């Protein structure tokens, strides 16, 4: 088997999602190469070369790849797929943007967001927002996969693979990067945060979310919200955790004033440890919480910020 992993990076730093993806590749087994496509990304290739267990790093360094536009990335990956059995990328917005088109051009399916490798052609993936787990067998010669990073540990970084420079340049000219607006937040983003504290309708209003921010500051956590809180207009919907919002699986998820509607649970129940704070002891959230605290959030959340 011959596997190509598409590295996730920002032309400067290799993102840890790549390490989770390589773990999935190594579980499949065989030769694993990593593609670093970007612009001025030599240092990323050097970081990638240290990933344990891989055979080599391919670097495609050209301004056309700087912003990972799907139109330019797809033909490059398709070209490199010759002789490969598996193409993997992390299920980040970048991986999700690029890989389905690669699959289509190869006339194969993509198996999205795998959370486990059963065999070289069989994988598990969540469907219905994680309310069911499907075991899917690929019938294609080339398996195109995106990998949910929370499903796999990070590979160790103690190797020294060779770096091979590619000369291929694909610039479709159909799309052009204009600008980006990186959310200037001290806090991590929801989907990659190790700790998340979320508020629900029980927060009462948007201002009260500052109580959660105080805790988040102490823990380096991201702040999320339930759909009820978003619908009530407390906070904007990019903070929504749930079936139609963001699906998260941090190490620690603290649900504050959230009753635990199915659609919210669907978005966070794979978190490693769940804490629920709610004054209603019958709130469904307690049925999935590792630690429940039945109390008035306005009393205990400030205490929590203090004691951390």
């Amino acid at each position, binding site marked *: 088997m011959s596997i190509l992993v598409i590295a996730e990076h920002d032309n400067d730093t290799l993102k840890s999602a790549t390490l989770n993806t390589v773990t999935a590749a190594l579980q499949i087994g065989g030769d694993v190469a990593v593609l670093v496509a970007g612009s001025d990304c030599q240092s990323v290739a050097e970081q990638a070369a240290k990933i344990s267990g891989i055979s080599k790093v391919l670097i495609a360094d050209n301004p056309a790849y700087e912003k990972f536009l799907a139109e330019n990335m797809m033909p490059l990956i398709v070209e490199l797929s010759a002789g490969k059995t598996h193409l993997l990328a992390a299920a980040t917005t970048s991986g999700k943007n690029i890989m389905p088109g690669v699959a289509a051009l190869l006339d194969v399916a993509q198996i999205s967001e795998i959370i486990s490798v059963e065999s070289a052609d069989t994988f598990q993936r969540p469907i219905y927002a994680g309310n069911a787990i499907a075991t899917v067998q690929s019938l294609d010669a080339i398996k195109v996969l995106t990998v949910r990073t929370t499903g796999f540990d990070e590979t160790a970084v103690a190797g020294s693979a060779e770096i091979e420079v590619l000369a291929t340049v694909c610039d479709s000219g159909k799309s052009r990067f204009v600008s980006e607006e990186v959310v200037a937040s001290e806090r991590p983003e929801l989907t990659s945060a190790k700790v998340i504290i979320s508020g629900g309708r029980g927060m009462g209003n948007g201002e009260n979310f500052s109580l959660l921010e105080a805790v988040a500051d102490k823990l380096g956590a991201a702040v999320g919200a339930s759909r009820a809180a978003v*619908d*009530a207009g407390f906070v904007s919907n990019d903070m929504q955790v749930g079936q139609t919002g963001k699906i998260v699986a941090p190490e620690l998820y603290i649900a504050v004033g959230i009753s635990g509607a199915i659609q919210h649970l669907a978005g966070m129940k794979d978190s490693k440890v769940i804490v629920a704070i709610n004054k209603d002891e*019958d709130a*469904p959230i307690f049925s999935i919480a590792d630690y429940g605290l039945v109390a008035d959030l306005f009393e205990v959340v400030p205490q929590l910020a203090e004691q951390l």
Partner: protein
Amino acid sequence: MSNYQHPYKEANFVIGHLLHFDQFCEAHSWDEINTDFTAVVLAEAEKFAVNYLLELNRQGDLQAASLQGDKVCETPGFARAYQQFIAQGWPSLSATEAYGGQGLPNLLSVACNEIWQSANLAFSLCPLLGQGAITAIAEHGSETLKQQFLAKLISGEWTGTMNLTEAGAGSDLAAIKTRAEYIDGEYKISGQKIFITWGDHQMTDNIIHLVLARLPDAPVGVKGISLFVVPKFLLDAQGNPAAENDLRCLSLEHKMGIHGSPTCVMSYGDKGGAIGYLVGEKHHGLGYMFSMMNHARQGVAVQGLGISERAYQAALEYAGNRVQGRDKAGNSMRIIEFADVRRMLMMMKSGTEAMRALCYYAGFKTDQKAAATERQKSALQAQISFLTPIVKGWCTELTQELVSLAMQVYGGAGYIEETGVAQHVRDARILTIYEGTTGIQALDLTHRKTLSDKALQARQIFKEIQQTIDDLAVLDQRCYLSRALADALGDAQEAVSWLLENPDQGGSVAANYLQLWGYLMGGWLMAKSHLAARQQLQLDAGDSDYLNAKLVTCKFYTQHFLVRTQACLASIRAGSDTIMALSEQQFFSHVN
């Protein structure tokens, strides 16, 4: 706060399989209207209710409308919901197409009203009153009145109110004192009206009041009352609201429930007389009001249905989550596992289903009448008139029992306002009172609907019920439902005979007579539902889980509600015997 989901399977079953709506549409060549269409409309109605009205229900309860100066300020948030309500065109649903209405069947209107009322009774009363104003002007108003007011009432741009009650004229409208005088070519209205639902608010730029008043030359009593359109703002030459009319809200009532619905004391003519426009002919106002009475009264029954459904869903959710006690193996139990909680839930489920069947059945009669030949029309009108007091009186009384059971399922938590079920109990309490108390409905049924035609209409219904009993027996010789329904029919027949023989005791037996009819009609429609569900199951069509549950609720209804006809009959037979036996002093015998 409890959630609410529209019982769409149930609504679609009643409309499609109990009432055979598609056959009706086909027979009248309504090519664009059928059960697929009603299902789509109901789904949209649910979306609006869930996303706009649910949250405001509690809000309205906690923060009632308030009087600021002369202005009534509705609960915050209601105006936004109302704007969305009219943006979606809901007020136009069953209104006449000539003035921008959609001309859709009353049955669909009833089914939509159920949804609004489940979600937020206080809010839904505003458009409901508008529907009354629309009907009054559309059926009895002059062309000028229609031109001026109808389109904007139908679009919901303006709302409407009904001004009947006065401090001295409640159940007896003959005592109305509000005056109308014809001065310089205009009618000037002056007087005070009470209990005016949504009499003022700031959601729209005009409110159209329909006011009952007496002209100086009017005959005494009910025959001397005229009906006027009295707008909050008089219209300019372009038909837009301009000068303020001489009317205002004097005060708001502090009510037990439906806090979100402002109940106004309205004063007309403080500065010499509010300008009004006569609807139809002089002195015929009460007749016009009564022509809408059946519709309005059935509408209140649907309110009971709506709240009962909502309360049931709340109780069901609570019972499924609340953990209390342990089973023999030591596992903790949810209260839904206890038989008595099951019994209460079954009472609510089957009672609500019977109510829905009856409300939709009666509401559909209006559509059948509209589509009928002249000769059939009068027969259908007689049926509607007969059904109305039963539908109103029985459904709203049963609602009291069911919402009370919902609170019972919650136990102590239900008595605490935060859980929300208490609001349903409080909101529901008005339903047996307004639009004619249960006592008024019962007297209407005994006297005007039974004794006056010597039970002709009652016997027509008996024939239909007998047919269902026979149908059930054909299906299954020893059918439980068939026997139970036959017993209940026997009770009703006896009650009718007793009443005919003892007309002077009608007032004493009226309440029980009405209840007997209610349980019987509910039982009959549940039996027909049973037949429809069995047919669906035999055809292997539809949702077998739903249909099998239906068979059980039909049977439960028979075992637990239909049997109450026996008790009603026993009390009827007692007549006035003890009811009128005590002297007034003897009512104080325990204290004096």
